[in-house]
């Protein structure tokens, strides 16, 4: 792992390295280095298996974070390549040419976060949401509760009480 880290540090501009466990390291890189780095890891460092590609919404910093989790099946360790992209203009270079299944992950991220991967096969096809016309639901500014209240009618007979109001009614009904 050490020599691997030295190898990539001399070739790519690495922002930060977090050694999570002996068999798991996270590497933060600039956007332009991300796809070249995972290409290098696949082709020269035995990280031949893509475990997953996922995203997180850092809304306070106005950024999305993409994580490419790669696995070295021979030496049995994982590397997570993390990259921050702008939330406003949420696009990223496609990596489907490295692993075919990346296209499916990218299609999912397009639908759930609204992150575009131009050139990725079928990236605009609906993934699971079927006719979604709201904010991408994994964005943190999507109000899940409001959506469920607006979209689904309550079962007839449902009634709820606010604890503070209910306590007033029971314990001090005559006070202002």
């Amino acid at each position, binding site marked *: 792992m050490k020599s691997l880290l030295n190898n990539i540090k001399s070739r790519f501009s690495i922002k930060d390295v977090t050694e999570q466990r002996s068999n798991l390291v996270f590497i933060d890189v600039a956007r332009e280095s991300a796809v070249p780095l995972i290409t290098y890891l696949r082709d020269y460092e035995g990280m031949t298996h893509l475990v997953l590609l996922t995203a997180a919404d850092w809304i306070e910093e106005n950024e999305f974070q993409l994580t490419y989790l790669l696995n070295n099946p021979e030496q049995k360790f994982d590397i997570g390549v993390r990259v921050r992209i702008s939330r406003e203009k949420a696009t990223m270079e496609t990596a489907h040419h490295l692993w075919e299944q990346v296209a499916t992950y990218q299609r999912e991220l397009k639908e759930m976060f609204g992150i575009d991967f131009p050139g990725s096969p079928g990236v605009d096809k609906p993934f699971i949401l079927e006719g979604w016309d709201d904010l991408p639901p994994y964005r943190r500014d999507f109000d899940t*509760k409001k959506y469920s209240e607006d979209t689904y009618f309550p*079962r007839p007979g449902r*009634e709820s*009480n606010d604890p*503070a109001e209910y*306590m007033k009614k029971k314990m001090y009904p005559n006070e202002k």
Partner: protein
Amino acid sequence: MSLKDILSPFTAWKHVVKDPVTIKDPFTREAAERYRGFHKNDIETCIGCGTCEDICQNAAIDMVPVDGIETRDGDSGLRPMVDYGRCCWCALCVDVCTTNSLSLSNHYNWIDEDPDQFRYIPGVDKKEWDTNEKGWKKPEGNYELYDINRVKMEEQAPESRDDSFIEIVKGYSKEQALLEADRCVACGICTATCPAHMGIPEYIKAIRNDDLEEGLRILYDTNPLPEICGRICTHKCETVCSIGHKGDPISIRWLKRYIADQHPSDQYKEILGTRDIELNGKTVAIVGSGPSGLSAAYYLALLGYKCTIYEKLPEAGGMMRYGIPEYRLPYDQIDKDVNYILSLGVEIKTNTNIGTDITLEELQEQYDAVFAGTGLHMGRSTRVPGTDHQEVYQAVDLLRDVVLGKEIPVKENIVVIGGGNVAMDITRTLARLQKVKFGKVSIIATSLESEDIMPADREEVVEAREENATIIPGWGPTKIETEGEHLKGLHVVKCTSVFDEEGRFNPKFDEEQIDYFKGEMVVESIGQGMDISYFKGDIKENLKLDNRGRIIVNENFQSSIDWLFVGGDIIQGPDVIHGIANGHKAAIGIDKFLGEG
């Protein structure tokens, strides 16, 4: 077509005699240990705070009343009902639960033809998985969606405060207040327990939004003494805080102080919209300028009444000024709250004693109504032999004399009798004076109550000890040892219990265990009584008392004499926040009585 193509389908026949890989009866298969299945709720632990309902992103939870569960302080009496047509088994409700009563079993299969069966109250509507130990629980350890530890309040260290009356508590910074406010789940369980029913979740929300003007308006809706209450309120609200079940309760009192501290008093009228109050031509006299009198005056003034407060002592505030030591409540903070009330046109006549300087009858003639909130200022005596000695004092008298600037006859060794907040106040006050006069502290406070049931706030006991006072709970005084004009000490006997089975005050002693505390001065602090000698003649005749000698008032704090309203410690409490609540209700009652409300 090759021969292989013709024969290969027949190879499948070999599976006919193999065991199937699928499960024959999936309905008896148990789910994984931490599977998130149907809800369970320990309804005895649940307090109906509704945080589960609030966090549910599918609006799957309703808070509903349940037969046999009473609404009481700290428990709304409601319990969550889950609609499984909406639940997505995310378990956020479990993760946010303030009491850890809610959990998910790992039971996942349930068939019924009636869709309404899939709405039920976990823990109330009995289910077969109620005793299922497996499933999802909030993980132990440091897993919380909010911080269970309160933001620490900075205080003066014991060595930098024990010889002066400098304020101990420093107050929250903006950063600290925001963090503390962020711990609140806004359930509102606290509101019912606050005697003034303050909008606690609402003003904490104002802090989170950094809208402190809105915060101040919410405070003044129910409490015109926020600087004072933000420092010395008995904070009963915090005892029922839902977060307190598994962590530290929210610092509601310090957050209130934070709001009040942020606004200079000259902005109050602008923020609270009280620049132009129209007088309605009616007048009210208020006897006593303690919390109830000030509160009544404030809310009456808002309604347009011209109020005049009559105060026996040189300055306003009652027990807040003349009972509570300056290190807990600095005088300038009392002045800030009081001066704002006076700025609304409330007049105050200090050094004026009702009954001698002006009578109650005269007030009745000159004003449309009278509110009396004269408090409890007469110390009660233990009446053990020796209490008539000149070196035996009453705590309330000494505390008052300190504020009045009189010389306090501090002795080198002092014994205080009492375990309440007043006892701690006088102990800590005298300890400071001893430190200044003798360079050391030698004071013992002893109470009937054992340490665990001492009525004083816990922090008072802790801080008194930090200041080198000795607190010895669990002893009853039997005799004060005297020798001519000198006092020698206090004889005590072990107190084994204070209350009987019915909860009445009925102390029991173990005569075998005795002790003796040396001292040249004894201070009694076992409670205070009211002085209502200013009720004379017809008023005294017509004023109805109950069989324990307490004045009877209705829900508007109106006495049996229709123009006379009574509130504060002589009716309820004793504490500041009850007085404030009483004064507010009396103001509404007076408004009704005078035909304006």
